[in-house]
């Protein structure tokens, strides 16, 4: 089982590098809203889902690529961990 902290760190790193380049890493908390704050738009969501599937060898179902499952690093990590 991959530790939750490891999943969170990986997701956080991806979001910082892809969607928040140059931002202070400390500003991105595990509870920072991503979808509702507009950080994850429709294209960014495609990139994130592709990353999660490749990085963790999981399959994200169509109905899971939404605000309920992807709005925060915490939500995303929980979704990934539920599939490992």
């Amino acid at each position, binding site marked *: 089982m991959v530790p939750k902290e490891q999943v969170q760190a990986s997701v956080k790193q991806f979001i910082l590098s892809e969607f928040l380049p140059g931002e202070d890493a400390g500003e991105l908390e595990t509870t920072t809203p991503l979808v509702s704050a507009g950080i994850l738009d429709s294209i960014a969501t495609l990139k994130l*889902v592709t990353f999660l599937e490749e990085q963790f060898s999981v399959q994200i179902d169509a109905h899971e690529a939404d605000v309920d499952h992807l709005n925060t690093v915490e939500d995303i990590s929980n979704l990934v961990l539920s599939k490992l």
Partner: protein
Amino acid sequence: MDFSWTPEQAQLRSAVAEMAEGELNEGLAERDKRGEFSREGWRRCAEMGIHGLPVPEEYGGASAGALTTVGVLERLGYGCKDNGLVFSINAHMWTLEIPLLAFGSEEQKRRFLPGLCSGALIGGNAMSEPDSGSDAYSLQTTAVLRGDRYVLNGNKVFVTNAPIADLLLVFANVDPERRPSGVTGFLLERDTPGLTLTRHVEKMGLKTSPMGELFLDDCEVPARMRLGKEGAGQNLFTHSMTWERSCILAGAVGTMERLLETCVAYAKGRRQFGQQIGKFQLVATKLVDMKARLETSRALLYKAAWLRDQGRSIFLEAAMAKLQISESWVQSAQDAVAIHGGYGYMCEYEVERELRDALGSRLYSGTSEIQRSIIAALMGL
């Protein structure tokens, strides 16, 4: 990757091509002029199981994988010159059956999917509006919950199958302040009060595929007809569009093969300056390029379908397949007209119609520019 066909797949592909060639092309030139949809053709394709290919058997479908599905649709496009009919079938499958399958309640799926698979029901979706095309989620149509019903108001354009549809997936915003996160899908039956088909739209090509506009005037939709959760519209549309982009031009790959065969035969039979025109390098080059476009298009089509069958998300591959096949189809149809010279410009040779039918593929399911934007983003740019 293994793209070889099993005996069963090969048999189905062959049967579909044979049926299409023998039964779907009669009177097409006249029907194209009149903009007439072929209900008989629709029925025959449904009888062959085409409409329900990717739908599980328990809902009336064939439980075919994505690769089998595109393989069969490819042969439909090869045998059937009625590109409008093929387009209508695709709209029905990817914009309604697939989202209904993924997001529908058990009750919704059992109520509608068997009829959609058998062809008894004709479906489509309504997303585009006069002021929202590529920027789809900026739609203005609203849905307000009142008791056990949503009241929809708005206007939809470019709705494939609208004039003949029994069931439509209509997108509206339940909370415009949430912008894309408020977009929600609703299933509307043709006789829903307040739903009006305002006009039948004439197009440049795909004329045998009816297209219309919708007007929603205090249109009352039971809450049980919402597809998925409130705000799931973006997710639902992405799912639908990914299937659509990866599959909708499977038929065009077959069409390109048929066009190529027609052009090679013509280039061998037509003589100018004392020899077959195919012996002229400038003509041969066009045919070689048509062949290369056909093979690269087919490879991308099959790869995307194969990856989907492996359970992978295929956002990038779907956009690449859509881009490559649509651009190839248009260029190859243009080359086909050029190879036929003046005859290619004449309606009776039926080559000019192929070009008119191909051009829309650069626009629907996301323009080529949008596909390039998606691909660039997914490349990390």
